[in-house]
């Protein structure tokens, strides 16, 4: 599906990193980040994405959709990074689109054990993730 069809606007900013690509949809107040390679989920890359969002967001707080369709290996501290206060101060709602069974179980771990402080949900497809993050429902 074309991103324009789903998000109903063209991204105003698109930036590629060596591990993924990020789009910004300002009318929806959404950043969409997608991993494009098999890699580890580490704080350094997560910080790069977070920093990019903060520097480019029109509003102080934004919504973030992270698409994880490649083979990704969580590192020890990544869950705490995702749930860190400095990050929560900038993110209104967050959703992860997870495809692999391993990552879905890791997602269960994040939701149940780390208990994210901002509204967070996991989906297996992007339209469902978009609908939730764009709704008023938490």
């Amino acid at each position: 599906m074309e991103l324009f069809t789903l998000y109903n606007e063209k991204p105003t900013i698109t930036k590629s990193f060596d591990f993924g690509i990020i789009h910004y949809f300002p009318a929806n107040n959404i950043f969409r980040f997608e991993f494009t390679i098999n890699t580890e989920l580490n704080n350094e890359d997560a910080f790069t994405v977070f920093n990019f969002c903060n520097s480019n967001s029109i509003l102080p707080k934004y919504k973030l959709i992270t698409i994880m369709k490649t083979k990704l290996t969580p590192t020890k501290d990544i869950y705490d990074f995702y749930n860190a206060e400095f990050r929560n101060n900038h993110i209104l709602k967050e959703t992860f689109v997870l495809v692999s069974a391993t990552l879905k179980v890791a997602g269960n771990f994040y939701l149940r054990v780390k208990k994210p402080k901002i509204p967070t949900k996991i989906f297996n497809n992007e339209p469902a993730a978009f609908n939730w993050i764009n709704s008023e429902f938490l």
Partner: protein
Amino acid sequence: MKYNTIILVDDNPTTIFYHKDVVSEFEPNADIVSFDNPYKFIDEFKQTFSKSTEPILLLLDINMPEIRGFELIELLEENEEDMSKLDILIVTSSKLNSDLEKASRYPNIIGFIEKPIDIDKLNKALSGLN
């Protein structure tokens, strides 16, 4: 996260004996309860554990002759037991893709751990590193 209650369900009493030792070393202050009969666990869950206000960790053997680990979870769900405090680590002798795929459908399952368990494996599983 610290668990005050850790439950072991495994049909093999020898495995339970060994795993109990490891878990008590891992979490010395936790109450460790074990069941070699999965149906007894289900009864006890209804009566006691479902009323817990604290998180409970369940180490659940996936391959038991009487009932598979996944079927046990389904029975609890079908009976509409309150599983909100129950975090489950699936204990298995081999990580099969089909099991992993199935596990991902149950939101209470937070990880996998291979037999025989040890402290490193527990640490890893409870850090979200599967």
